[in-house]
């Protein structure tokens, strides 16, 4: 079991560029979550999918951020026209659904927008 895989681990973009972050959930897990972590705001929920369907995107900034889960083996978080305030660690987690549904986190992608 390789755990949740996130790529890239680090990404540097210039202001206004696009950033796409990838997440591969644990095999067999049907729920995928995206969180953002900063020193100031801590761990913030962004969005989540269950069985590839978007369930709750209440934490997603309404502009520039979008997430997809085209198949059960990966999800992407896309940030268009990146801004310096988007700099953060973006964490992906996956869980099975049912029971305690514990979320298992990947190592994160550290995004730096210059």
């Amino acid at each position, binding site marked *: 079991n390789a755990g949740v895989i*996130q790529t890239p681990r680090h990404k540097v973009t210039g202001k206004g560029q696009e950033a796409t972050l990838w997440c591969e959930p644990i095999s067999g897990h049907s729920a995928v*979550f995206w969180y953002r972590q900063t020193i100031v705001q*801590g*761990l*913030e929920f962004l969005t989540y999918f269950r069985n590839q369907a978007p369930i709750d995107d209440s934490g997603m900034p309404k502009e520039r951020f979008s997430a997809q889960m085209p198949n059960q083996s990966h999800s992407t978080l896309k940030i268009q026209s990146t801004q310096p305030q988007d700099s953060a660690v973006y964490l992906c987690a996956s869980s099975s659904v049912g029971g*305690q549904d514990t979320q298992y*986190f990947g*190592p994160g992608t550290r995004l730096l927008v210059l």
Partner: protein
Amino acid sequence: QQQVRQSPQSLTVWEGETAILNCSYENSAFDYFPWYQQFPGEGPALLISILSVSNKKEDGRFTIFFNKREKKLSLHIADSQPGDSATYFCAARDNTGNYKYVFGAGTRLKVIA
């Protein structure tokens, strides 16, 4: 509105002491509380968790005490080791079928040898 609060923000203990990390919440619908441990440069890793039907959960040196009436819980780390130095997050999930977690701001623990 911060639904999950943690205290202290940082804590330093000597090796061998018991570290006590506190967490409180506001939403009565929260029914599952995992604690995560995070080292620099890594994602959070599940340490121990408790359901609201229990008042205590033990796993080795780690114990959660839960008080539903007061909406408070605490993580006790017995015989603290320098390797326990990390940031600890209390999280909560509600019972409405929405599986997302709400996280506290974390407690940074330092264990001095």
